[in-house]
């Protein structure tokens, strides 16, 4: 149970005069939904970008699945097992939903130029496998019927789900969702919550960055609260909710919880 998927220690990052992150560390165990919350500008996205290789941290050590992990090149991060979604959905708009998910299989497949040009038996078998897996994943997130539609024509909620399917296609050790509920209405949030719950039940590990406190508190097993680049609390939702600093920083001074 206590198999550690991602362990990050002592991450600091400075942008000129702004200390965006100072000594932040998290430990995510297999099968957990780990939340990362904080007010605007707290450093959530910076931390996220450090983990996914977009920014190089000034200090910090990383371990992914027990192996030392160095997020340097962005495309290496996916290969090593962290898949992400984007806050402002980044699909491949002119490609069909199916093709979007098929791109996700890129890192786990190998056929090259020769296979493609000569249509070797190995290439065909791999293509069939890619398509089959992509269909399965579309089914899993509940948009199989939209497989052949261009992703830009999908509704907002469906695009979010397609992005999650695409991330799952890379067979990640950890799937990182950057504000998946942003811009969703109440009904869509319920559906999203069910989906995240299902992904967790299937043994996957999720890092969730979210603004919506209700969603985070309801879903996460553990969470970290950031404020001005510092980690002000860490623990189960119950513990965090009772933490004085969190109440002051995040929920507002003078706020009472019961």
């Amino acid at each position, binding site marked *: 149970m206590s198999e550690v998927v991602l362990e990050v220690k002592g991450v600091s990052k400075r942008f000129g005069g702004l200390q965006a992150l100072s000594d932040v560390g998290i430990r995510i165990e297999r099968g957990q939904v780990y939340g990362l919350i904080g007010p605007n500008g707290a450093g959530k996205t910076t931390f996220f970008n450090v983990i*996914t290789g977009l920014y190089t941290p000034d200090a910090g050590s990383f371990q992914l699945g027990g192996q030392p992990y160095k997020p340097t090149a*962005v*495309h*290496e*991060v*996916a*290969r090593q097992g962290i*898949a*992400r979604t*984007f806050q402002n959905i*980044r*699909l*491949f*708009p*002119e*490609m*069909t939903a*199916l*093709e979007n998910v*098929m*791109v*996700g*299989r*890129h*890192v786990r*497949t190998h*056929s*090259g*130029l020769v*296979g*493609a*040009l000569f*249509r070797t038996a190995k*290439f065909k078998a*791999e*293509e069939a496998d*890619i398509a089959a897996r992509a269909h399965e994943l579309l089914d899993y997130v509940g948009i199989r*019927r*939209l*497989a*052949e*539609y*261009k992703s830009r*024509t999908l509704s907002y909620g469906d695009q979010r789900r397609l992005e999650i399917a*695409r991330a799952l296609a*890379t067979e990640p050790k950890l799937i990182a969702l950057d504000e998946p509920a942003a811009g969703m209405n109440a009904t869509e949030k319920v559906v999203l919550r069910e989906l995240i719950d299902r992904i967790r039940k299937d043994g996957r590990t999720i890092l969730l960055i979210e603004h919506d406190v209700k969603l985070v508190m309801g879903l996460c097993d553990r969470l970290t609260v950031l404020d001005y680049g510092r980690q002000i609390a860490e623990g189960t939702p119950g513990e965090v909710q009772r933490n004085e600093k969190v109440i002051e920083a995040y929920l507002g001074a003078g706020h009472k919880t019961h």
Partner: protein
Amino acid sequence: MKNKFAVFLVCAVALVALPLFVQQFGQGWVRILATALLYTLLALGLNIIVGYAGLLDLGYVAFYAVGAYMYALLASPHLTETFPWIAAMFPKGLHMPIWVVVPLGAGLAALAGVLLGTPVLKLRGDYLAIVTLGFGEIIRVFMNNLEHPVNITNGPRGLDRIDPFTIFGVNFGKPLVVGGFSIASVTLYYWLFLALVVGSVVLCHRLELSRIGRAWMAIREDEIAAKAMGINTRNMKLLAFGMGATFGGVSGSMFAAFQGFVSPESFSLMESIMIVAMVVLGGMGYLPGVILGALLLSALPEVLRYVAGPLQHLTDGRLDASILRQLLIALAMIVIMLLRPRGLMPPPEHGKAAPSPATAK
């Protein structure tokens, strides 16, 4: 299925027989057809770079030039006449067979593609277009000036007396006589180019429906998301440049053999722009669109020649025919882009198996 095959067969026979029919109206018409096919080949190559990978390359003609000069140098008397030591090595003159020169030209062009690709990896959109435009000009200027102190390209005078192709003992430079029926040299080239275009379409189609093709399109659609999906964008972009350039190199050596003469003039910026226009006008990233665009834009000037003549007559020769022709082409392009901004034949809205939206929900 059977019906489809029959249609395919009829089209194939028609395309093969077309020059035999057209040559009755004069060989010039067959020449126009062959040139149109050559441009189609170029447009297919550029489509890999611009249409699939989304890298706007305005210097594509450089790869065409590399292939053309490669063939011209290795299959014309220029090198042996200029350098005695080469003449000593090849006492019968330098006449490399196409089985050596065409792959060599393709390889050299691919190398040029990768060389151009490396420094521009981080550039996108307009910036990329400007740098590639410069690259195209550099190659042309090189061809223009590489005659001092050592005469390699013969400068603006160009290289002439280039060998025509010889494939399986058939000399493409002379009419082929089969049982009393004479097949013109241009017709032979037409068939060769037709075969190449068909082969290229098959290869492009296969690339499109592969892991590599999808990676290219992902980069075109959203580079950051493509990286996050684990695509090594650097390698994939270089591969796109290399593949596209290969097509350019092969077309270049075809052009050199077909014309029998190359000079820097044939590889101007205008050519690059025309090829980009073919891809964009037809429908970027969609093979039928690209082919249509290439055929249309390469044939249109020739057809307009017959329209411009009478128009010039009407104005008592005050309007120059060539200017009028350019004017009409520009006008046609503006009208097409206004009416069909995504190209004459853009990719279909949905995938093959898509049900209509009404039944989907």
